[in-house]
């Protein structure tokens, strides 16, 4: 697989080296799996709809980009953290818009590459702002007051912001840290004790396909519903998920790209997605005796406006 990708990449790289492939926008994806393709396709289609000829947009993987040599586009859109990291290290002349990656990833890349977010390197985040998550919590479970949060080494950085937001909304946070290689149970027990909701903040040390069974079973036993960050968690058993689809990311990235093509700069501060989706596990809702409707929640949340 790797070898074939490499050969294909070299071949494409040779092709790209020809002047005929000079493009206005280059889309560099971490990989070619479904979510990345969905984001990139939505981006290209929207750019085309806005009048940019399709041949002006070049799609490639990070590997192909490395092999491609000089391209001189007006904008590079990175899809995924791996592509972003590659571009953050290698590309300093062309503005780069990083997409389809969570804020924690973008900030880690900035730290590791010694760069700063700027109009040369900006981002459209995949994760949803904490304020929007708390707003969804208010709409879905108006009576909830105590919110449990499990922090891991990669999410703990968001703790000060969440504490401030919770305080402003009159919510009590019940927090627990899960250290690296530390068992989950004691922390999980603490955050489920008497809480109304478990707010899942993405952290691969805490939430993974290996740990999700324990977390969801324990929270269900405690009758504490979970507000998660991806629809896969809602399917698995979280009551709610707030998320943006790759297509929605592609669409917004296209709008941002169009601004750059009109001669404006990328926003210096990275942005969150304007659009989003709400997923509800209706079976879990029914079993917990809760009435929550995904569509009306999404509607109300949109009306509240983007933060």
């Amino acid at each position, binding site marked *: 697989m790797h070898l074939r990708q490499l050969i294909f990449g070299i071949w494409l790289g040779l092709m790209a080296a020809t002047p005929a492939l000079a493009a206005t926008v280059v889309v560099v994806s971490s990989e070619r799996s479904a979510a990345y393709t969905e984001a990139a396709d939505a981006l290209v289609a929207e750019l085309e709809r806005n009048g940019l000829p399709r041949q002006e947009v070049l799609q490639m993987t990070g590997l192909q980009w490395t092999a491609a040599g000089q391209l001189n586009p007006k904008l590079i859109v990175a899809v995924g953290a791996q592509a972003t990291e590659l571009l953050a290290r290698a590309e300093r002349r062309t503005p780069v818009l990083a997409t389809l990656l969570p804020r924690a990833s973008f900030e880690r890349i900035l730290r590791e590459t010694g760069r700063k977010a700027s109009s040369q390197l900006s981002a459209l985040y995949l994760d949803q702002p904490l304020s929007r998550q708390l707003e969804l919590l208010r709409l879905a479970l108006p009576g909830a007051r105590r919110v449990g949060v499990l922090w891991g080494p990669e999410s703990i950085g968001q703790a000060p912001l969440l504490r401030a937001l919770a305080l402003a909304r009159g919510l009590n946070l019940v927090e627990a840290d899960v250290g690296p290689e530390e068992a989950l149970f004691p922390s999980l027990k603490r955050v489920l004790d008497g809480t109304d909701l478990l707010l899942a903040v993405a952290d691969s040390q805490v939430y993974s396909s290996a740990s999700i069974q324990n977390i969801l079973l324990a929270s269900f036993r405690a009758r504490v519903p979970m507000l998660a960050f991806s629809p896969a968690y809602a399917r698995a058993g979280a009551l709610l998920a707030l998320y943006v689809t790759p297509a929605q990311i592609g669409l917004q990235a296209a709008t941002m790209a169009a601004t750059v093509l009109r001669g404006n700069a990328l926003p210096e501060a990275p942005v969150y997605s304007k659009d989003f989706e709400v997923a509800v596990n209706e079976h*879990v809702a029914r079993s917990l005796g809760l009435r929550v409707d995904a569509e009306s929640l999404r509607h109300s949340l949109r009306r509240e406006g983007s933060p």
Partner: protein
Amino acid sequence: MRGLTLLALIMGTGGLAAAQTAPSVSEKDFLTDMPVVLSVSRLPQRLDETPGAVTVIDREMIRLSGARDVADLMRLVPGFQTSMAFEAVGPQVSYHGAFGGLSNRIQVLVDGRTVYSPYFIGSVEGGLQTVALEDIERIEVLRGSNSAAYGARAFLGVINIVTRDSADTVGAQATVRAGENGIRDAGARVGWGTESSTFRLSLDRRADDGLQGSNGHNQVDRVNFRADLRPDAADEIQLRAGTLGITAGKGFTGNIDDPTRDVRYGSGYAQIDWRRVLAADQDLALAYSHTEESYQDKFPYSLAQIGINDSIDVDISGRSSSDNLSLQHTWRQSPVLQLVWGGEFRRERVTSKPVYNTDAALVTDFTRLFGNLEWRPASDLVLNAGVMAEHSSVDGSSLSPRLMLNWHVAEGHTLRVGGSRADRPPSTYEKSADVRFYWNDHLLEITTQSSGRVTREDVLSTEMGYLGVFPSLGLNLDVRVFKERINGFIRQWNATQPKDYFNQDDFSVQGLEYEMKWQPWSGAQFRLAQAYIHSSAADQDNGAVSGLPLAAPRQATTIAFVQRLPGALDFTLLHQDNGTMTLQGAGRLDQVAFTRTDLRLAKALRFDRLRGEIALVVQNLGSPYPDYAPSFAFQRRAFVTLQIEN
């Protein structure tokens, strides 16, 4: 583990390598698919969609009640009668009628395993003692006949004890309790494990001097082990094993028919449950369990009164064992249709030379096929249609159907109407008892000899229910109006000698019961359970051993008030007012009414990483009341409990 980490640090490599290989959060965390965890069989029906009335007593309520026993907790459930006597193995509970010294018309399950004893006429007293209260997550009491889902023994209801998942009890806990009436309980529990497997081992003892007037010095010793294994996302395996020993003082000084002695009951079990998630909407559950029981009650009986200068042994000791294998498939065909179906095979062996006059084991095989269809013809309607076909190798086949319609009239208001039919085949003893007394190979007397003519009794239940939730008032209400028509009620008859069992009575039990939970203000909870029960059983003696007409009180009320106070204090007041009824171990003329008031005051403790509680409980503040028999009384008992856990 810590040692290894330290070693790695000393070596100067391990820590670094770990830091480098640790995955960092990326879009993968948002985009990767997850296994379905809360699959269909893990999502229980809502209380307002179950095909019957359910009372849930959760861990918090168990703690706040001050109870030392599952049987004592059943006082919180409308329609239940309880006794704290250890005369019939252990404390007794019955629903809509304490029809005798042993309760055999309700089913008791502990984590899905039936603990109904096939010994004697069938009973649940020993089974109710299976686990320590500290290990119980919740008790679900299904009020009303439930044979369509749980088989013949759920004739009038089911007590479903659910123990805590071992993932929730990682750490250690110790409990000691001491007080009046010789109360000296102690328990220790340890839980350990990893993300994929957790374990729990609990040992406990519950001991006291029993009821006033009894030869009580009762002791319950338990060991329970539970393992929860999650080898992968689709599979869950649970292993359980344990032993129970009950020693109870019985009899009366100077009574040659019933002298003072110790009676011993022992049981042991092993259980394996395997659940596999087949798909988001399909689960398969396979369960096997083996249970062993022994009963020892033996005393010398002097033959002086018949002119023989010798004695014989009066002995009702014996053993029983059971094996249970079941397979269940849960399938959510669509959002409007869900099916649970499966099969079960159960083999019971009862052995007692003195009780059955044979050394051979009396074997009964049960084969069961069951199904329940949950259909939502409209968004506000839930129809549960269930049926169990059961074949007993001793008593043939029977069919127990149930139909229940739940209508969500408005948000928070549900009406329920339906009916069911169930049979209970006679137990091994009712069918085959042969109690003989020999002296030097001379048959002296046959006291009980079942002719085997007795056949199954049946119940036709109809009910209407209402469930109301009033969020603005903090109030939940559950009302059940019922009529249970019992035909061919099995009981022993004294008119003949030896005693035999017959399908003697047809009668109905009807009435109304409700429970209300109300949180009037912060930190407070009222819980009111009330039952009005009327039995149409004829008020006649005819030599019946126990009295049917007032097997349940006409009126019974239990009120619990719980208030959280400043300074981490919890206050509980529990008051029970039980109308006139026939005592479990007495004749129909021994009818009593009683009241009992309990108080509990507890303070939460916290020292560094340890949490705990110290509680003072006073049970029955008032004067002693008769329990089980007129000569026994439940007297005041105050005790202190200290519990520490990490």
